[in-house]
């Protein structure tokens, strides 16, 4: 049970990122249906969310601590990229009253940062488990 706490939180965060990126936490939507500047950033966030979801599910299924550490490390990398996606790596609308600037960017940075912290926590937990196993 305790082993899966970090995977569970990571999966929940990944779910919020994935579902949020095409619902309330998504990019701006133009009335005429045309693409906004931030649409690409929204798609990239969705992709990152999906990748983290897959990694979190794999961490649930695979029990070997070394494999779990590797998966958490991968998730850590994806989360770091995720933090940088809206606004740094990919453009968002430049007016800071736009939905992508008021909702998507801050929410995604917070969620990816939280997922990053959980991944780091997961790595530390698995490492301490390996150490305990040796002693």
């Amino acid at each position, binding site marked *: 049970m305790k082993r899966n706490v970090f995977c569970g939180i990571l999966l929940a965060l990944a779910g919020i990122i994935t579902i949020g990126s095409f619902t309330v936490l998504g990019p701006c939507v133009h009335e005429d249906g045309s693409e906004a500047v931030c649409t690409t950033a929204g798609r990239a966030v969705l992709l990152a969310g999906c990748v983290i979801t897959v990694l979190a599910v794999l961490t649930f299924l695979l029990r070997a601590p070394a494999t779990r550490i590797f998966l958490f490390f991968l998730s850590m990398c994806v989360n770091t990229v995720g933090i940088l996606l809206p606004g740094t790596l990919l453009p968002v*609308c*430049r007016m800071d009253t736009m939905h992508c600037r008021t909702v998507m960017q801050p929410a995604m940075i917070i969620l990816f940062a939280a997922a990053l912290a959980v991944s780091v926590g997961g790595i530390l937990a698995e490492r301490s488990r390996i150490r305990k196993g040796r002693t």
Partner: protein
Amino acid sequence: MKRFSLILRNLVRKPGRTTALVLLTAFLSVSVFCGTIVVSSLRQGLNSMENRLGADIIVVPAEAESKASLKNLLLQGTIGTFYMDASSVEKVLETEGVEKASAQVFLSSMKADCCSVKVQVIGFEPENDFVVQPWIAESLNRSLGDMEVVVGCRVETDVGNNFRIYDRNCRVVAKLAATGTGLDTAVYCNMNTIHMLLQAAEEKGISHKIDSGNDSDVVSAIYVKVLPGSDPGLVNSRLNGHIRKATAIRTAGMMTEVADSLSGVSGTIAVLIASVWVLALVILFIVFWMMVNERRRELAVFRLLGMSRKMLSGMILKETALCSFTGALCGVALGAVLVFPFTALIESSLKLPYLTPAPGTIVLYAVFAITVTTAAGCLAGTRTAARLSRVDPGTTLREGA
């Protein structure tokens, strides 16, 4: 230090109880910190709006009220394009009780190259203006030239950049300080520039329905300062009677409306904070009451080992203080994550002027929230500490046997 390590070990060995206490106090701290920040930001926004709105009366075309409320234009940056004859300025100046009058022309950009939305372009007369110019003077110490613009703090461009409006390049010469109102998303230029932009808009086939057909003969709003000692209400009535197809609106009335909305929001936040506090304090008292029964035997052992009553109650109080302080710190951190990244969202949702306080003030609010929450936690724990320290070790241990 040894005693402190005992307190820490007590807390670590009961993770469930410790987490519950930390979460409860964090909840209290979040409500105090977020509530204080939001209310103070709203108050600061209102003050800023009052300072920026240097006029007593605003004269706008009669159609303006239906087309775009002036209050919305000021608060939310709603795009408003309405025009009246420029001769109205002369009529306003002729009106008894008027000290100064300054005209502005509004134009909405089609889609500025900066973003995916329209921006409000405001043309003013730098030589006569007493509304925008003092504000611009804080950022620009020379007069605004032709095809030069000053942008609000929320227009995402930098000084020295070119800003394209209706295919005309305007040079950004200054960026204004935040006001917390919709004017932060506006672009300001002189009258020559705005007339060139109006012309450019016409060339692009965007009609602004100017009756006279001449762009230079129109104004959108006239800001009026009444003579000292004159009654603004009376001047307002005179203006309404004197100028045809225009409405004079008192800014004081507009400010009162905003202040009323603000007090409504502040009241709601205060009620919410009070409810959260009552609820959390009740839960906190229940948790401590349950703790009395749970820890009776444990503390009896401490008494048998030679701990005095004072030491025992001190230990319980220190545990409570540590939990409350940790919870308060976590709460402030969570509150900061919830409030600061979403400032623009809160502002647009409340539809009120919103200006985040200076960092020093925020630190003060954080210290206040931490102090109040820790004090509340300690207060709730005092009775428990006193009750537990009075435990008779012999009776308690016999009861349990």
